[in-house]
């Protein structure tokens, strides 16, 4: 023992204990702390190594994948090369395994691609057949137009009549029959099933030894057997007639469906077809009889709405025609408007679905809206802005002269250089008025009225003269109407009515003045009163004969304005009377009346 009093170190102590002691101590330690030491060792190992054990990894991997995939695309990017390599390797080892796995997915995708290609092909055929013009072709073409079905399809529809008589589901490897519809149609369906497989194998081995193609169809006379091959089962359809292009696709779809739903029974098949009796409804769906007369029924929905097509075409055509026609009408109306006197078109443009037109217009020029409407332009679509101006074009000058001067019917106006020339027959009043007004018209330099004679129009003149020659005679000192005078007044009333009609036609305003007279006997005062009574008596009689009061005026002259005659007795008789004076002048125009 050391005598320096220093404490014993463990090593010194251990040394002193000897080998046996160490072992015992170690055993004791193990007994007391064994479990804890192992835990500590495990913790230390975990701290020292960053790697996970396979167990830990298996625990965390799914969750890790989910989390990482949700975060970004790194996982997919990292896995892609490995997955691609794995697929390549799998295909290299055994392509059939991979083909079997993706068979249900591949079929629809391929069919879709082929359908699109075929659709294009049908269009090509369609164009080719379009040149055939047989009577039947024309009939089918009409049907195609009516139903909206492409012509080629119509042709095929008429050409095809077929019946799927039997459908067999055959196990691919063994050739054993899995299911068969309809029941009892084929007594030896199992033999046929195997033989079909054998024949398929025979064709394959004989003609395509290197390829993995399958016998798809074989025909004998009217009968065709279509075979759709799948990895585990084949579907054979016995068809009488010409099977349509759609039938293989239908069979293929059925077969894919069966592969999907009966995957396990197909894989484990060992001769017991019991599991496949449930495929019969699917197979029965493939059984069909299609007659030519059946086919159009399939287009029922289409046909119900087929009327829409011509209606739409008509509408579209109508819109196109209307637009084109509208544009054409507009251009024509615009050209016409531009040549119209007193109208100057400055600018036109199309915006907001309307025509906008800007220009100048003499107030006497034609109404542009009416002109455009008469040319078929919808004036609701036209927005016009016209600035007023005075046009000196001859046509407008004349229009303005007619508007202002209102010449009677017998008078015509024309322009000779800047001189307004009037010819015809007119009342003197009009001549005087025209002479005064005309030079004031814009664009008129001078007026020539030398060719206008004074007088009423020819249809009025004789009537006026006849009336003015009539005398309503009275007895001395009397204003009573005797029989002879009444007859005269009836004649006057009739003639005056005729004159009014003629005056209306010539646009004249006509009135009649009744002038009462008396002979020179007696005082002038009495005579004046007598003559007024006589004129009034005549007027009353004419009124009773239907002449309007507005057309009649009464004047009394007594003996102051006698009618002359050679013999004194005759002169007295003629002046015991009432005479008639016709006053006629051109009617004022509507514009003048407004003024």
């Amino acid at each position, binding site marked *: 023992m050391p005598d320096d009093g220093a404490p014993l170190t463990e090593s010194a102590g251990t040394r002193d204990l000897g080998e046996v002691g160490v072992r015992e101590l170690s055993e004791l330690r193990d007994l007391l702390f064994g479990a804890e030491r192992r835990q500590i060792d495990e913790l230390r190992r975990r701290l020292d190594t960053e790697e996970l054990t396979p167990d830990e990894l298996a625990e965390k991997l799914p969750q890790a994948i989910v989390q990482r995939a949700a975060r970004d695309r790194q996982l997919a990017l990292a896995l892609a090369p490995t997955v691609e390599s794995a697929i390549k390797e799998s295909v290299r080892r055994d392509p059939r395994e991979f083909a079997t796995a993706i068979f249900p997915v591949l079929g629809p995708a391929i069919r879709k691609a082929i359908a699109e290609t075929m659709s294009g092909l049908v269009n090509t055929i369609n164009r080719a057949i379009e040149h055939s013009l047989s009577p039947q072709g024309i009939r089918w073409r009409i049907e195609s137009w009516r139903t909206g079905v492409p012509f080629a399809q119509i042709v095929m529809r008429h050409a095809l009549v077929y019946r799927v008589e039997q459908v067999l589901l055959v196990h691919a490897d*063994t*050739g*054993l*029959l899995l299911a068969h519809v309809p029941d009892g149609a084929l007594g030896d369906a199992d*033999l046929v099933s*195997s033989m079909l497989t*054998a024949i398929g194998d025979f064709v394959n081995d004989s003609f395509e030894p290197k390829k993995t193609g399958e016998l798809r169809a074989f025909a004998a006379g009217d009968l065709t057997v279509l075979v759709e091959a799948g990895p585990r089962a084949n579907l054979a359809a016995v068809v009488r007639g010409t099977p349509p292009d759609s039938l293989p696709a239908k069979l293929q779809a059925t077969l894919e469906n069966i592969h999907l739903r009966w995957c396990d029974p197909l894989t484990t098949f060992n*001769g017991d077809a019991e599991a496949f009796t449930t495929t019969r409804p699917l197979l029965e769906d493939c059984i069909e009889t299609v007659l030519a007369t059946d086919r159009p029924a399939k287009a029922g929905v289409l046909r119900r709405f087929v009327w829409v097509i011509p209606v739409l075409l008509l509408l579209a055509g109508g819109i196109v025609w209307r637009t084109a026609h509208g544009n054409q009408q507009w251009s024509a109306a615009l050209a016409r408007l531009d040549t119209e006197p007193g109208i100057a078109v400055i600018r036109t443009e199309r915006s907001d679905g309307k025509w906008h037109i800007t220009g100048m217009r003499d107030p006497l020029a034609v109404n542009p809206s009416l002109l455009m409407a008469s040319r078929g332009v919808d004036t609701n679509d036209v927005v016009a802005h016209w600035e007023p101006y005075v046009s000196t074009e001859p046509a407008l000058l004349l229009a303005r002269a007619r508007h202002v001067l209102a010449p009677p019917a017998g008078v015509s106006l024309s322009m000779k250089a800047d001189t307004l020339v009037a010819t015809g027959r007119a009342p003197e009043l009009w001549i005087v008025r025209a002479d005064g007004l005309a030079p004031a018209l814009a664009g008129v330099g001078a007026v020539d009225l030398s060719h206008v004679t004074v007088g009423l129009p020819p249809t009025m003149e004789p009537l006026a003269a006849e009336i003015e020659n009539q005398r309503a005679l009275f007895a001395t000192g009397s204003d009573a109407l005797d029989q002879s005078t009444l007859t005269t007044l009836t004649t006057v009333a009739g003639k005056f009515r005729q004159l009014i009609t003629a005056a209306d036609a010539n646009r004249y305003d006509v009135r009649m003045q009744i002038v009462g007279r008396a002979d020179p006997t007696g005082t002038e005062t009495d005579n004046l009163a007598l003559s007024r009574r006589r004129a009034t008596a005549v007027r009353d009689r004419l009124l009773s004969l239907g002449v309007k009061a507005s057309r009649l005026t009464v004047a009394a002259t007594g003996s102051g304005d006698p009618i002359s005659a050679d013999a004194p007795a005759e002169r007295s008789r003629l002046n015991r009377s009432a005479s008639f004076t016709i006053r006629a002048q051109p009617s004022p125009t509507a514009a003048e009346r407004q003024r």
Partner: protein
Amino acid sequence: MIQKKVCMVGVFATGKTSLVHRFVHSLFSAKYHSTVGVKIDRKQVQVGTEQVNLLLWDIEGRTPEQEIPESYLKGAHAVLYVADGTRRETFEQLFSLRDHVRSAAGDVPSIVALNKYDLKGQWVVSADDGRKLIGGGFHMLTTSAKTGEGVEDAFRWLATATLTPPSTPTVQPQVRHGN
């Protein structure tokens, strides 16, 4: 009802078709042999309560020029080998024929029908040969197309064997051969 595919193979002219002719239901004529190379018949066998439909692929016999097509053997549940007791080469080729069948159909139950037992006097196959065959892993029985002897036995054995799980050892059928 259970269906099984049984391939019947042998060297050319061992009398396969004649052997089964009276025992099977035929739909197709013999000309299928010369055209397609296979003719399919049906043989119904009752095994216990189960009725088994054997679809018998009577495959055209092997010739020195032409091997039996593998595609016909594919998926077979059992194989019936036929050899002609009067022609030694048909017997000797059984081993290579079996290798070919196994490569296409796998190790399925199979039996050898040593045919033309009715011509036993002309047989060139001895009892030792028969033992050699059994020693080589073949099941075997003797048959006669003429008398029909052994044919039903062969089918029953095949039907039973196809229904038995592969692991269960099958009983060697009774073998009769020359004495």
